[in-house]
């Protein structure tokens, strides 16, 4: 499920998500950069193909070269736009979270402020890599086109049948973590039968709520039932 910031069209949403086989990923292009969504897509695609774009130097170099090539071609169409061309030279960056399911566990890799939530019986068992809504807001480390990250986060998590995993970009993660009691009320709301059909309405409601207000930013959620 995906919803863009209220003053943007759906196409302008910088979040990217994907699922393939036993892998799922979300990525959030940093809006300070031009072409960040394309970069986020490149990260997600390469992960879903079975690669690790955060840890494999060759893969990272390959996708960032392709991104730069695409941008070079694009730059020729904006000849008179000095600032546009300068912006493109700055490269792109994105937050990334990918998981791979195994028999009774999953492995996750991440850099930035996208989070997974391991939920059982409507309660958060674990949120990762952030566990507190106050952790959002400061500038996170991101995956950039300029070079492979010097480090990134990895974790393995065991699960039981019936559990759920939610992959979320930052605004939704921060919102979920603002709820007390293991984020009970957030899961009650997001797990409703019609949540998927009514996702945009739900998000609009959260954005205008008096309490537990959702920040006005792009929102993406992948829900996996185990």
């Amino acid at each position, binding site marked *: 499920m995906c919803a863009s910031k209220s003053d943007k069209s759906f196409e302008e949403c910088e979040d990217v998500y994907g699922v393939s086989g036993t892998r799922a990923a979300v990525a959030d292009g940093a809006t*300070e950069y031009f072409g960040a969504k394309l970069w986020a897509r490149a990260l997600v695609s390469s992960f879903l193909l079975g690669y690790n774009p955060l840890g494999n130097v060759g893969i990272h170099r390959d996708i960032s070269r392709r991104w730069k090539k695409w941008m070079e071609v694009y730059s020729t169409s904006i000849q008179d736009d000095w600032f546009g061309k300068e*912006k493109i030279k700055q490269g792109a960056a994105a937050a990334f979270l990918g998981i791979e399911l195994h028999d009774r566990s999953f492995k996750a890799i991440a850099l930035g402020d996208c989070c997974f939530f391991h939920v059982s019986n409507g309660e958060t068992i674990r949120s990762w890599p952030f566990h507190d809504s106050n952790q959002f807001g400061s500038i996170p480390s991101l995956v950039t086109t300029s070079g492979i990250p010097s480090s990134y986060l990895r974790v393995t998590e065991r699960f039981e049948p019936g559990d759920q995993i939610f992959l979320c970009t930052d605004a939704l993660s921060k919102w979920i973590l603002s709820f007390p009691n293991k984020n009970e009320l957030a899961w009650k709301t997001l797990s409703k039968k019609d949540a998927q059909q009514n996702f945009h309405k739900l998000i609009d409601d959260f954005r205008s709520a008096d309490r537990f207000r959702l920040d006005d930013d792009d929102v993406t959620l992948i829900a996996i039932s185990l």
Partner: protein
Amino acid sequence: MTYEKSMSSNEPGLFVILIDQSGSMKEPFGSSGRRVSKAEIVTVNVNRVLAELCLRNTKDVGGRPAVKPRIDISAIGYGNDERDDHAVRPVFPGALANKYVVTLPELAKNFIRLRDYQKEGSREVTRMPEWIEPVSVGATPMGTALKTAREVVNAWVTRHMTSFPPIVINFTDGAVTDVKPEELKLLAEQLKAISTGDGKLLLFNCHISSGKGKMCFLPANKEDVPSEEYAQLLFDISSNLPSKMVSLARGRGFTNASEMCRGFGYNVDVANFVHFLQIGTIGLASALG
């Protein structure tokens, strides 16, 4: 809560940069032995700030880069010219000539040239756009500059009542010549009385160094300000720093910065002049999101 509003395309902020263009601005900046004039250093750095603001606000809009109009800019010079004993004028050139307030997209499309710059101590050369030229001739009609700023800001505020309050940053190297101190105070108070829903206008004053005298930077107490009447006057008319700017100042190493501090500097050297300019413009715009 005041001074919290983000700068956005729907509710842009306003930076008004007042630049002393009097004759003494052709003298070297400070006593470091550098032969670059105060006018050149001020204009180079104001141009850099303008370029940085345009670049930071260039975003991906529907798959194309576009400069978002999140901040409006006014750049006003005050000095002499042959026609008028005391002259105050907007300093943008070319297509923007005579415009007191421009949007970032207008600015981005209308620089007058690209110039190669070599950063001090580095071999790296970067190309940067320029808008403003150094000018240094005549007296210091700061009173008229404040009056003009008030007119410009009043007109802008009627269209932007919910925006972050306007920021006026005044760079000068010498004493005001067109009004007496008491009148300058009154003009400053009238300017600072202008407000939006997010608070009152902020007026900051940075007196740049001729090489003599002790430097005073972001003082909290009048006792820390040099005893010259002019220093005391500029301190009196400067606004306190809002909390977001206090954090920025601390982040740049001014660990004693607090909300008791005024946005004021006296006999400021080049490095601190750059800090002052950037904290009040790029830094603040970024901090507000």
